[in-house]
């Protein structure tokens, strides 16, 4: 009885000592917090891996209008309207909407696209103040974009599932600066809308 009591006192004391030592040690370690969005070394879309499934974007210049992505989406997020002309074997896309508010970025649509026109980008900050603005129109209302014809020398022949696509820098991006002492400390980096096109 006494030995059990003494053993329990010893166990309590030793385990509490060890626990206190562990938490004390954490006082002297670097915290792992990444202070998004302002105190980060580079903008987050550059820190994300290329496989990241961000917001869906569609490059209508290489879209063949096959509607595979629209049929594949399990929740009907994509709306495409294509008018085909069977004599001239051409078509025009009059509407290419992706409802980013509904999309669950599962990536099923990006896997079936033959040219890789619809793909993920590493963007995820898409919040707007009106829900209707979350519907991304990749064809401006009123425009008609001709469908791309697949041939031997067409641009990106099928997005191989093993090759992640990195989105091209658009005009409103700034080239990400890599400060010389980025490895040593954190640098406040601010995003600004850049009027000139980046590289």
């Amino acid at each position, binding site marked *: 009885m006494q030995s059990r009591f003494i053993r329990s006192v010893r166990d309590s004391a030793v385990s509490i000592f060890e626990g206190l030592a562990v938490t004390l040690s954490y006082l*002297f370690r670097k*915290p792992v*917090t990444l202070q998004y969005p302002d105190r980060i070394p580079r903008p987050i879309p550059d820190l994300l891996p290329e496989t990241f499934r961000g917001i869906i974007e569609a490059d209508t210049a290489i879209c063949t209008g096959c509607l595979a992505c629209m049929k594949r989406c399990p929740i009907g997020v994509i709306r495409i309207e294509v008018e085909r002309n069977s004599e001239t074997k051409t078509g025009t896309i009059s509407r290419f909407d992706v409802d980013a508010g509904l999309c669950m970025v599962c990536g099923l649509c990006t896997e079936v696209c033959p040219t890789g026109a619809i793909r993920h980008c590493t963007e995820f900050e898409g919040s707007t103040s009106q829900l209707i603005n979350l519907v991304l129109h990749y064809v401006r209302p009123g425009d008609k974009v001709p469908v791309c014809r697949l041939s031997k020398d067409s641009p990106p022949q099928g997005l191989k599932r093993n090759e992640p696509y990195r989105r091209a820098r658009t005009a409103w991006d700034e080239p990400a600066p890599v400060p010389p002492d980025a490895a040593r400390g954190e640098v406040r980096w601010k995003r600004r809308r850049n009027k000139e096109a980046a590289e």
Partner: protein
Amino acid sequence: MKTGFDNLAARLANVPWGETLAAALWLLLVAVAVLAFMATFAGVTTWVERRIAGRMMSRIGPNRVGPAGFLQWLADGLKCFLKEDVIPDAADRPLFRMAPYLVFAGCFGAFAALPFGYGLAASGIDAGIFYVSAVTSLVVVGILMAGWSSNNKWSLLGGVRGAAQIISYEIPAGLAALSVVALAGTPNLQGIIQAQGGWPWQWFAFHNPFASIAFFVFLASLLAEGNRTPFDLPEAESELVAGYVTEYSGMRFLFFLFAEWANIWVMAALIVTLFLGGWQVPGAALPDAGTGRTFWILASAAVFFMKTLTFAFLVVWVRWTLPRLRVDQLTDLCWKVFVPAGFVCLIGSSACVLIPGQGAWHAVHRVVQWGLTAAGFGLAAGLLWRARTNIKNLNERIYLKVWT
């Protein structure tokens, strides 16, 4: 403090009711000073606790409001101040309103007897530790009121648990304090400090093994009194949402928290006063009235503050490390372990009063004192060393920037 009051009384001697007026003004002045200190300490402790808790969890605490987040507590206080006062419809309104003030009064009353330095105490009550013990029991009434009047079963559970816990742990706390009173000869807190010395082996914690055990018993009992983990079942967040303060919001909620954080000071100050030599400066004898007195007041206050803040840090550190005990384990621990240990310590310490001032027994006692001191500081050093090996085990580097 005597001289200050005498000056004031002398100035008002010609005014009708001069002495009473002087006494009342002095009382008000001291109370406001203590309240200001208590409020500032409570606020700053929340900031310190959140930063320490953050670093212990590998994250940063608040760091946006003010430099290193120092003004966070002001922002939180202002926010609570401006909140809507919500009282549940079926709550018992008078009791609901009164409960925070009782809890606050129980905590604030204890400040009246606490020493802050040589000659710095709001009042030198001769009943010292007994007065503190008695007045902190007032929070029991407040907690029960809060739990009952909220008209919420979870609050009731929390309130009843809290009351049981605080009442139970008064006993071991009192017994451990009595061990020290036996060694010091007086329950007056300033007297207890004067009976110790500045050097660690002259502290009561290292005086004899029974006093060391009483030190741990007292530490644990005060943690339980203050509802701090590992004894924070009355306000267990994961079980009772927020215990007896579930229905409180805004300024009333702030009063409860205010009392809880100010209680940390009371806890730490009592431990330091009773067991760790209080404001005794190592290597300096008590001064006579006259030269060097101001320096002595400042030095003793600095020593006291440093020791108390170390123990406040310990209270915060223990909170973020240990899980909490279940209510029956808590009361079992109190009645089956701490109370018998308290009695044993009391008898043992009283016996140690009989050790003579010289001779063989005295030499043995000195050796025991130095041994206990070495053990105590060895424990602290061992903790630091173990922390260092923990960091090295994960191949990480020691990072000392605390202001990120």
